[in-house]
């Protein structure tokens, strides 16, 4: 187990700069998720940590060793790939023990470690099978097992669950989390799936175009996104976005938009915004309350457009002056498209961004 320190790392593939001046520290025993859309450089970063890409400048340290130019095998890492990458001509046991055999570990030690990993991942009765005789979930378990037997300092996961169906993904996700709790090892995990990121991570690093946008705990990232990109990338349905201006009211700053005007008194601004500044108000669907008690005097009148039942909850999409907004309500809520509703926001928990820089205010 070890910490990982990345310092002002630049990576250029071909002639294309992929990562620019990236710095990131991962604590010993931490589960860090690199989250971002495809092409954001998260996989490149992971493969560079593993030693498969040359570094243009900057350094990588694992524990107290500088491994910037070390060979993959000398970095004391274990890696799990999206395509499993199991050795097709070897059975499960030999797949898992390949690295140990290369390293010349004694036979009884190999047996012990394989047995331990197999027990952890419920692979006991599959040891003599070949990869072709396994299901997708079993294959990925073997791939994880193969990384585990190495007793590495850092485990790298490159979208390991993306090729699995939804049910298996949830199951293996839980197992991975349990594994991390049991082993307490440092893990770096690449995904574009926000649910995986939220559920697994101690900290999430959200990336875009080769740059880290925000690093923080899942709660921080979700509740206090640092800019519009992060706000839009996490959450389903996505955050409701309203454009408007800062105005002055009695108690403090107000939001004045086409759809609605509201008091921002409870909102924790970093600094008091100037009057007339163009802003974007972001409200998560669960921070939108809707009510069917509508009278002629209700200020925010809207019409239900679509209701999506999810089981425990319902997503209600409603329209207000040409803008479509969503709200998450409980399963008891009754309503149909065309119904008139009133709505309000849980403003202290909402987000306000600058319209130009898209940064959080």
């Amino acid at each position, binding site marked *: 187990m070890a910490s990982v320190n990345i310092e002002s790392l630049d990576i250029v593939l071909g002639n294309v700069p992929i990562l620019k001046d990236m710095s990131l520290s991962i604590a010993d025993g931490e589960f860090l998720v690199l989250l971002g859309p495809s092409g954001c450089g998260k996989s490149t970063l992971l493969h560079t940590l*593993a030693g498969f890409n040359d570094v243009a400048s900057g350094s990588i340290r694992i524990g107290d060793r500088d491994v910037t130019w070390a060979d*993959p*095998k000398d970095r004391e890492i274990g*890696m799990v790939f999206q395509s499993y*990458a199991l050795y097709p001509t070897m059975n499960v046991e030999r797949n898992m023990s390949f*690295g140990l055999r*290369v390293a010349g570990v004694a036979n009884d030690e190999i047996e012990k470690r394989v047995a331990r990993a197999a027990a952890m991942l419920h692979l006991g009765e599959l040891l003599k099978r070949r990869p072709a005789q396994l299901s997708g979930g079993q294959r990925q378990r073997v791939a994880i097992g193969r990384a585990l037997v190495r007793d590495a300092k850092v485990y790298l996961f490159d979208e390991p669950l993306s090729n699995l169906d939804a049910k298996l993904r949830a199951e293996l996700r839980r197992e991975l989390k349990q594994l991390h709790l049991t082993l307490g090892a440092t893990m770096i995990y690449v995904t574009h799936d926000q649910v995986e990121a939220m559920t697994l991570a101690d900290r999430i690093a959200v990336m875009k175009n080769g740059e880290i946008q925000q690093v923080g705990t899942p709660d921080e990232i979700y509740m206090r996104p640092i800019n519009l990109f992060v706000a839009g990338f996490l959450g389903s349905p996505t955050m409701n976005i309203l454009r408007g201006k800062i105005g002055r009211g009695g108690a403090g700053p107000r939001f004045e938009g086409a759809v609605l005007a509201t008091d921002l008194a409870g909102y924790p601004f970093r600094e008091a915004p100037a009057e007339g500044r163009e802003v974007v108000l972001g409200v998560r669907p669960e921070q939108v309350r809707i009510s069917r008690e509508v009278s002629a005097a209700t200020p925010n009148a809207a019409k239900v457009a679509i209701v999506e039942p999810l089981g425990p909850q319902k997503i209600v999409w409603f329209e207000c002056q040409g803008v479509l907004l969503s709200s998450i309500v409980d399963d008891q809520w009754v309503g149909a498209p065309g119904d008139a509703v009133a709505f309000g926001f849980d403003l202290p928990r909402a987000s306000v961004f600058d319209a130009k820089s898209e940064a959080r205010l």
Partner: protein
Amino acid sequence: MNTNTNVANQAMRAARPRRALVTPARIGIYAFLLVSSAFFLLPLYVMVVTSLKTSDEVRKAVLFAWPAVPQFSNWVEAWSSACIALACEGIQGGFWNSVRLVIPATVLSVFLGALNGYALSFWRSKWGDFLFAIMLLGAFVPFQVMIYPLVAWFRLGGFYNTYWAILLVHCIFGMPVLTLLFRNYYVAVPTELFKAARIDGGGFWRIFFQLMLPMATPMLIVATILQLTGIWNDYLFGLIFAGKDNHPMTVQLNNLVNTTFGERRYHIDMAATILTSLVPLLVYFFSGRWFVRGIAAGAVKG
């Protein structure tokens, strides 16, 4: 595999509405198949029949007639006592020369081809693609052009007309196609597999021998068949580079057929020819399935 069964299933389902068995298209297909198999099989039939005739029967010149009494002694004679120039030992010497050459040349060239393909696909070096392009170019240059320079070099090196010369020539000329075959096979292998092996500590040779070579079994079989039959059937290189003591069976056969004292003994010539072509024929017979499969795989995946 899965897609195969799927395709098969679909084919079965699609065949449910009974189609007429005899359609003009079907008749055309069978007619074509019959004609083309006759085209290839008739000469073989004539060869076999002639090789079993007595010289009197041959002289009657009834090409397709079956011999009155099949003379298997012709084959024995061609094998062990027919005269080539002054030596009357049949073509058995050539057979063993060919065996002595074909096995090491096949093993070596297939091994080198696999190694090349592996190195070119996974260990990307700066000049790899350039070298590969040159090698492919080599496959398109008619090899006759290179014969004289090779002869000159080998003479300079002092091993012209030796066993090593012919072995080397077969390895060199097998390289472009074999490299291409293996490179295309390995390019289709996900690089993640290679990366996983690198993390596991595998070096160049270990990854090759323990992972990539066993994985390429279908390609190995195809390449072996290609080389085995190609080298066995070679005449020109054997004649030019091998030297008198190492002449392969094809060269011996030619010498036998072209040795003329008095009358031509066509039945013995035919027997010797059949013996010579027996090895590639058997190879195709027993491995045709693999051959087609591998060629198709290699071709499509490229």
